[in-house]
């Protein structure tokens, strides 16, 4: 990319990099507005009405606390996934017997709708946060396992032999050699996992309506406050897009060295 002259302000740089995305958002909102004006149905409030409703929801303490509680559960489930699934995945990538044992089980678990386990897990663990965190953990574990094992498999054997020759133990090798070398693939897994965490969080809250963002949606629907329904959807959508952008930034920041090694792997 060509370096711009320094007189460009920071704001202008941001605009130059993101104007397509901004235009895409504007286009989606315009289509929505046009559809609402054309259909004139009570069930489809216009984009403008919905946008005006967003600050109203975000200034209500109860709703914001509900959304924050959702995000906290999501972060817990995701963090637990990182702690458990990434080391296990890395070990799977380096150990054939472990891979042979676990690969069939993960393939079997892949098409199970994780959020649908909610009623069963609630039977075991109650209706508290624990069940929801566990379901999110199960959702994020599969992509993390898969990408970590793929990444660890591709690590150059010579790196591991040198570490071994230097007298590094197994755990140290896993954390200080294999993890950094497999990081580009692991970060890809993290990006997939974040979006799955959000999906699992919303759907588990829609199934077990206690509190949180998913419950907010159905409360508004039950009370037939349609602009609220759309405003909450808009908030969730923005959370999804922002989390994805942040993960992508983090990935680039942590593994830009790998992108320069393999041009074309980004985009």
């Amino acid at each position, binding site marked *: 990319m060509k370096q711009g002259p320094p007189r460009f302000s920071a704001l202008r740089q941001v605009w130059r990099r993101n104007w*397509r*995305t901004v*235009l*895409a*958002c504007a*286009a*989606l909102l315009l289509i929505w507005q046009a559809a609402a004006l054309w259909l004139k*149905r009570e*069930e*489809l409030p216009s984009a403008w009405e919905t946008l005006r409703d967003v600050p109203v929801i975000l200034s209500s303490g109860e709703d914001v606390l509900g959304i924050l509680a959702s995000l906290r559960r999501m972060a817990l489930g995701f963090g637990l996934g990182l702690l458990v699934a990434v080391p296990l995945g890395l070990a799977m990538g380096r150990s054939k017997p472990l891979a*042979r*044992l*676990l*690969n*069939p*089980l993960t*393939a*079997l678990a*892949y*098409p*199970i*709708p994780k*959020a*649908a*386990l909610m*009623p*069963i897990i609630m*039977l*075991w663990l109650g209706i508290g946060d624990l069940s929801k965190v566990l379901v999110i953990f199960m959702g994020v574990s599969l992509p993390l396992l898969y990408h970590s094992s793929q990444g660890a498999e591709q690590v150059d054997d010579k790196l591991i032999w040198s570490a071994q020759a230097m007298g590094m133990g197994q755990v140290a090798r896993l954390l200080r050699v294999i993890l950094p070398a497999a990081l580009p693939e692991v970060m890809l897994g993290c990006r997939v996992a974040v*979006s799955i965490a*959000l*999906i699992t969080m*919303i*759907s588990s809250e*829609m*199934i077990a309506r206690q509190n949180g*963002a*998913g419950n907010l*949606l*159905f409360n508004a*629907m039950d009370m037939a406050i*349609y602009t609220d*329904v*759309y405003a*909450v*959807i808009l908030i*969730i*959508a923005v959370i*999804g*897009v922002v*989390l*994805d952008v942040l993960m992508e930034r983090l990935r680039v920041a942590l593994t830009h060295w790998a992108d320069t090694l393999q041009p074309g792997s980004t985009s």
Partner: protein
Amino acid sequence: MDHIRAQARRSPLFVWFAKHGAIWPVIGLLALWQLACLAGLVPPRLLPSPAAVALRLAHDLLDPGFLFHIGQTLIRLFSGFFLALALGLCLGIAMAQGAEPFLTPLVRVASPIPKIALYPALVLLLGFGHASKIALVVADAVFPLMLATLHGLRSVPPKLVWAAQAAGASRSTVVLTVKLPSALGPILTGCRIALVIACLNVFLAEMISSSDGLGHLLVTAARSYQVVDMFVPLVLISLIGLLLNASLQFARRRLPIAS
């Protein structure tokens, strides 16, 4: 004794097991689960044994009422998938033919949105029946199909296209008769991903609001704490997902296509 063993080794069952070594961890897990239930380690009220679930599933599969629910789920699953496939192919082709600068930013904004959050709006607009569930499936499954089509069309060897152009083929003929067939491999991979996504979305949507379908059966069983009946629809939708996945993998291996 030895020749009996040798004969057993040649038996189709043994060959199958040897070729599909992946089956052992699954059998091991099921056996452990069954043993834990038999030993009374877990109360059957909370976790039924796999044998109990399998028996109930076999029993339910003979029940016409149960088959009706399977049918409802499959109708939504497949109509959603095929609509998404048609839309994904069109958008993928459009992107490959030059619409990419316009469509890529839209995809980048729309794909990280959790589609299940749109479901309440879809219910408001399309009602509680088939339409809202099918629309949810389309909204989620179209992205992998579109990107797989684009990726497949991109990786077509240019020599094939040049050869067709030299033979006087028009732009649309090149797309339909050269590019699409040679992009079949990536498109089938996209189909595999999209089918699993379709299964998940149909089931979740049926759990959230529906009066029929497998997801609805799970919710009704949960309301009366019938734990075996809760496992049956869950196992069945997972089996459907596995079966669709495996059959597409099989089709991909059988078709004469470059990977």
